[in-house]
């Protein structure tokens, strides 16, 4: 767990670097938005954000059930987290498809896709990790003595959420 | 500490200080000629730092050398040295000394930098003394548009907007603040004249205001200082510092000349390379064609 925390701290710096890049580009660009683009729509990303952020609470509930050794409670809330994460990814994919600009559209297009894409990869990695943990719960007695993998996955999920909140504020709210 | 060791230490330190001061004075001869006001400032700072550095290097190396020569264990001696684990006073002293030196060198450097103020007013913030240098030595008598320094892979072009003259050699009047505007057409380049001790990267998409004051007539090397690809090493030309009168004559004569293709080493080498039947190199960046200029210098001209 200590090692994983160290790793996440290090990973945070990559995101911070991208954020700094975004802020520098945005504050120094002369033509920030690509021609013909007015701005980003906020409403549906906000809904996706709400789903992702609430999944952090759901995963905590799942962990509590595991702590009380209620495996089915753990599995159902764990699965719910996965579904919520997938919904977020789906919404993200739909948004990408609907946008009128590509990643070559100046520094705005580049940083937008870089930030959301890099974060999306993390969401995907989180869902895969959750899938592995869910599978492991079916191995008899596997989680009897507590399982660090679950705690790490959960921590990772909170990390992905916090990053998204910052990202959402930077890209969608600060326009 | 006995009185005798104290005297020895003081004697050694003063001797070392004298030698270091002497080395510091020698450092002026390690530099190119001082052809700008900035060069004098930089060389003084360098001399000061060389003296301090010599004191540190000679002192520490001398101590180590003494140990190595006179404090060796004899062949079959397997005993340990004194179990001396530290000395708080000594450690505080040798933390404080570098700190003091750093503040000293830093402050001196800060003052020097401010007096140079080579970055023009376009976009730079001056803290402390504003362009003191310009007031000290020959502020430009008549306001004229800055000379445009245009860099590209791999040629230098100097455009004098007042007379609509393009040259591949930079001419500047002596004892006047030179005002330049640096631009690049492709990649990063660096404007560097060792005899002036000034340097500035040139960034495509930006126009950087740059200034300094040449104080010595002569012909000096101007080099590209930021690595710019295949023919980077050839991207050199000359700066000619001359009296105001000959500068104006040169400008007038150049203005009367038509634009002709200048000599360009990169372009010539590139043509020779692609004409070879067997290429022994890796992929190369195609240089821009030789620049068109009213006046052009030759690579073979001598410089100081």
């Amino acid at each position, binding site marked *: 767990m200590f090692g994983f925390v160290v790793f996440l701290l290090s990973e945070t710096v990559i995101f911070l670097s991208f954020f700094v890049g975004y802020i520098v580009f945005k504050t120094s660009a002369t033509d920030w938005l690509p021609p013909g683009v007015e701005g980003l729509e906020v409403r549906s990303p906000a809904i996706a954000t709400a789903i992702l952020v609430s999944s952090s609470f759901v995963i905590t509930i799942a962990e509590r059930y595991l702590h009380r050794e209620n495996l089915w409670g753990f599995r159902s809330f764990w699965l719910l987290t996965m579904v919520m994460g997938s919904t977020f990814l789906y919404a993200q994919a739909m948004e990408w498809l609907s946008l009128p600009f590509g990643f070559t559209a100046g520094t705005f297009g580049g940083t937008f896709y870089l930030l959301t894409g890099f974060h999306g990869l993390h969401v995907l990695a989180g869902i895969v990790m959750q899938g592995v943990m869910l599978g492991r719960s079916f191995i008899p007695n596997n989680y009897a003595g507590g399982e660090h993998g679950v705690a790490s996955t959960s921590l990772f999920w909170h990390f992905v959420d916090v990053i998204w909140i910052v990202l959402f504020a930077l890209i969608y709210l600060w326009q | 500490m006995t009185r005798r060791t104290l005297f020895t230490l003081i004697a050694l330190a003063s001797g070392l200080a004298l030698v270091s001061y002497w080395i510091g004075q020698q450092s002026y001869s390690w530099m190119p000629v001082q052809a700008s006001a900035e060069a004098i400032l930089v060389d003084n700072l360098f001399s000061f730092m060389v003296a301090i550095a010599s004191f540190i290097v000679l002192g520490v190396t001398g101590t180590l050398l003494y140990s190595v020569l006179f404090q060796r264990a004899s062949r079959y001696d397997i005993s340990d040295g004194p179990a001396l684990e530290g*000395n708080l006073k000594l450690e505080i002293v040798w933390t404080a000394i570098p700190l003091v030196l750093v503040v000293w060198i830093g402050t001196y450097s800060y003052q020097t930098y401010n007096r140079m103020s080579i970055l023009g007013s376009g976009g730079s913030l001056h803290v402390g003394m504003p362009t003191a240098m310009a007031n000290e030595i020959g502020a430009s008598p008549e306001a004229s548009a800055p000379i445009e320094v245009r860099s590209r892979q791999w040629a230098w072009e100097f455009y004098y907007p007042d007379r609509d003259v393009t040259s591949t050699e930079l001419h500047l009047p002596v004892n006047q603040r030179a005002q330049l505007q640096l631009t690049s057409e492709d990649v990063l380049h660096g404007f560097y004249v060792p005899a002036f001790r000034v340097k500035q990267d040139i960034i495509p998409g930006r126009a950087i205001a740059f200034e300094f004051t040449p104080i010595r007539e002569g012909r000096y090397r101007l080099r590209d200082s930021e690595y710019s690809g295949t023919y980077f090493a050839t991207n050199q030309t000359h700066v000619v510092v001359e009296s105001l009168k000959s500068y104006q004559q040169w400008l007038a004569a150049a203005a009367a000349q038509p634009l002709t293709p200048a000599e360009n080493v990169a372009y010539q080498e590139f043509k020779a390379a692609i004409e070879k039947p067997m290429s022994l190199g890796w992929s190369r960046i195609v240089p821009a064609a030789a620049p068109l200029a009213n006046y052009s210098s030759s690579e073979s001209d001598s410089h100081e």
Partner: protein
Amino acid sequence: MSDATLTALPKTEQPHPGAPDNWKRFFTFSTDHKVIGIQYIVTAFFFFLIGGLLAMVMRGELITPAADLVDRTVYNGLFTMHGTIMLFMWTFPFLNGLANYLVPLMIGARDMAFPKLNAVAFWMVPVFGVILMASFLVPGGPSQSGWWAYPPVSLQNPTGNLINGQLLWLVAVALSGISSILGAVNIVTTIVRMRALGLGWFRMPVFVWAVMSAQIIQLFGLPALTAGAVMLLFDLAVGTSFFNPAGGGDPVLYQHFFWFYSHPAVYVIILPIFGVFSEVFPVHARKPLFGYPFVAVSSLVITGLSGVVWVHHMFASGTPDWMRMLFMFSTMLISVPTGVKVFAWVATVWGGKIQLTTPMLFALGGLVMFLFAGVTGIMLASAPFDIHVNNTYFVVGHFHYVIYGAAVMGAYAAIYHWFPKMTGHMYYEGLGKLHFALTFIGANLNFFPMHPLGLQGMPRRVASYDPEFAFWNVIASIGGFILGLSTLPFILNILSSWVQGKKAPNNPWRAIGLEWLVSSPPPHENFAEIPVVVSGPYGYGSNEPLVELAESKAAE
């Protein structure tokens, strides 16, 4: 003192990872930190030789003013690959190997915290090594943009191919970054979590302190470089314009990303070498490390400062005045904790019973060269002077005094010092001293002339130069060839003594330290019983036991 504890450790029948009779295990996915350590060191040294050969071709080119030995494009590729190989394939893997080998032994652990991750991190090294070397074979040749890969030059792709030298370079550097981050997580966790009983922070050897400080830099610095490299990769491969001014990008931002890591990277290299100095001097001068707590903590101070100095590489870039002045002061501050270390080593050596063994010679030579690098470093921190010598040979001379003079000499000191422990054999002193003499003379002949050249205004990275620079360049080239030669007695020494050298006792230097309590080479899992540490790491002359003796433990 330590002899008593040696007998207390039971004889073990397990294989000894360093012994030459089981060399095959070095080609397996071993999770033993000692095997991985030696794997790292040997792989790194192989690349050191390649990087050195490239440098010798460069020195051959520079022996005359004209670009005549190799084509300019080849020269540009050579210096790019020389820098990249020496940093990413030699120094980092070598130091990771040294840390891997020594840290668990020094802190009384059986292995690293994550042995499998450790093996994965190592096996990435040959993988990205092959990718980097493959760039010599792709059409158009390897990257020619220098190891900084500054855009827009690094984005110019004359071949037009998607797979080009620059792309492979970026992939290799990114993989190297991932490998280093994994290694750093592992090493930091090991040091924080797996120290033997009684081994408090201020009983840790300075090498362990230094390694920890260095790896923390990897953790906060490398991600920034990775971020920059990813953005550059996208610019190059798919046409985004983060750093391409033609599309509105900012090439100077890349420089910030790059130097935010790549300046601290110098401390990643030099801190473990400081650790090596701090281990070698007390042993071979038979005195405790002078001011141990100051030396230990100064490493962490350097780590802290290293995060706020990077702009001194950009004093002549597109940076405003205030930034230049701010970073000038912060950079100069680094000399304070560094000075504390240098003075402490001098005081350690002073008045000792010095034995000029090969590791001691290399450590002393390294210290003297580091001192020189240090004072030129302070000069470079001074912005007005730096503006004159920035991107000239003065800088090249300065950092080669750091990276060759201090780091490579320190690396050799470490190899000789711990060679008996790693292999169970003694090296030959005569060859070792010959190696030292050639290295010290060669390094100074090679790198000193670069300072006057830089002061005179010779830019770095040039394949040709004005004739007035010829004199010093000839001397530098001669030094370069001597350096190349100097590796021969070393290789001869290591190979022959590894196979047939005199058997090494457990503690040939009568050194204090947990690693010297176990057999040479140490058994699998290092310690039959984890020792309990009862005193500090440098008790020379005070006759205190380092670990709790087996008898006294039994009596409790």
